[in-house]
């Protein structure tokens, strides 16, 4: 078992009302946005199971949309995410559906679109702000995230284990600690989620790492990064 952080208990700092239906939903939105390379123009959320049943009372809709706009789970603006999306000309729609028995009760399929680019991501909120991404387009994946982990990177890289080792070494050299790394097969490559602790990594550093690490397809941050 991985050693829990004291701040997994004394946290996460979040906007209510529910860690699974609000904070977790926001996190799934962040993952969808990170995996989609572009700033989406249109997003459709297909709500399944308990998400479909109680999303209004738990503000799951507001939180999902906020996540797609890269808001953190503790951002008080989650409350106004509809208004902010409209201001930014982001079209959004919520549809209740049944994705099938095999999905966790708290599951959403997010379809992001920009021009010809389109991607669908299926994610489940499994409790306490922990989430799993289980499908990207038609590919089954298994990525884990947590509402409390603000500093996470999604990395798409070649199968060769040396690639990720190389990247992790470079991140460590920046004085940033990698506390967790989970990997999943994706097409003929690999997707990894790296949870960082310590200082916030900057936009420039991420771009530099993406450009200068051989075998890396892309590196995306879940929440908005600051410039150095």
């Amino acid at each position, binding site marked *: *078992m991985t*050693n*829990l*952080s*004291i*701040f*997994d*208990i*004394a*946290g*996460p*700092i*979040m*906007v*209510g*009302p*529910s*860690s*699974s239906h*609000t*904070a977790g939903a926001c996190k799934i939105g962040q993952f969808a946005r990170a995996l989609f390379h572009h700033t989406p123009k249109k997003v459709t959320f297909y709500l399944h199971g*308990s998400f479909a*049943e*109680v999303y*209004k*009372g*738990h*503000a799951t809709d*507001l939180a999902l949309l906020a996540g797609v706009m890269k808001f953190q789970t*503790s951002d*008080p603006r*989650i*409350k106004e995410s509809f208004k902010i999306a409209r201001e930014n000309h982001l079209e959004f729609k919520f549809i209740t559906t049944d994705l099938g028995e095999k999905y966790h009760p708290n599951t959403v399929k997010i379809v992001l679109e920009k021009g010809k680019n389109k991607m669908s991501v299926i994610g489940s909120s499994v*409790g*306490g*702000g922990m989430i799993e991404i289980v499908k990207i387009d038609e590919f089954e994946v298994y990525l884990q995230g947590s509402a409390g982990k603000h500093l996470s990177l999604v990395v798409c890289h070649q199968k060769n284990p040396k690639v990720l080792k190389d990247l992790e070494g470079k991140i460590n050299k920046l004085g940033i*600690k990698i*506390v967790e790394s989970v990997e999943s097969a994706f097409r003929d490559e690999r997707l990894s989620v790296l949870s960082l*602790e*310590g200082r916030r990594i900057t936009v420039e550093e991420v771009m530099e790492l993406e450009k200068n690490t051989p075998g890396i397809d892309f590196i995306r941050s879940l929440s908005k990064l600051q410039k150095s």
Partner: protein
Amino acid sequence: MNIYEFHTAEDIIHLCRKHKLSIGEIAKRYEAERSGKSMPAVRNKMKQTRDVMYEAVKKGIHSTQKSKMGMVGGDAYKIYKALGNTADMMGNKVTVRAMAYAVAVGEQNACMGRIVAFPTAGGAGVVPGVLFSSAEHFKAGKRKLLNGMFCASAVGLIIAEGATLSAAKGGCQAEVGAGVAMAAAGLTEMRGGTPEQCFHSSAMALKSYLGLACDPLGGLVEVPCIKRNALGCMVAIGASDLSIAGVKSFIPFDEVVLAMKNIAKIMSPKLRETALGGLAVTKTGNMIKRKLGMKITPMDL
């Protein structure tokens, strides 16, 4: 294995004795060691956590805003106002104020305010309620309050590893129950209790919550969650008092945690955050379900 690593109450009591430190101090060192951060950095992070909690309390006790479904809102304000005349109250000022703070956090959460899920959103009121209210009473320094918070977190961590902190897995005992056990230990440490006394208070508190169903109306974190947090403060303060008076838990804390895990395993899913049993399927519960457009569940009697 790290020097300050712990998984059970027995581990941490052993570390406390070995290093002559309190539970809170061990927890702080554990976090610094596992994250690679300095002690001041860890302390600073807890300060930020405290500030968010304090902000939620302060907003909550002055707010009369109702939640979306109108089930909760404005009670923290009422309780806080009643503090002006404690002669009318049976509980003392610390307890009543703790209840006001706990309700404040719950109401803020229900109204989409920012809170700390300490340990979860559903049980987030007890720790700030008990620790903040007692700190005001002791006129405790900031360090003391932070140590209480670290101590409470350590107890939560032991419950998370040994059983669960998710009501979907273990019912309300895992959320409000855990919060009460954590607050009891935190308060006992702030009062100068020994690590053993901290865990006796936690064990007594947690024992009182074993088996508690998670049966919220409409599945929302509102009724009965918020008032359970308020009354949980009384139990935490009571358990701490018992322990300081020299009362010991006959069953050690680690065994109580295992009992909790056992109960979680045999508890019906209908009582685990699904709104399919208990209060959620009462006449009032079903009325709320209807309002939310959910399927009505007949009560199985």
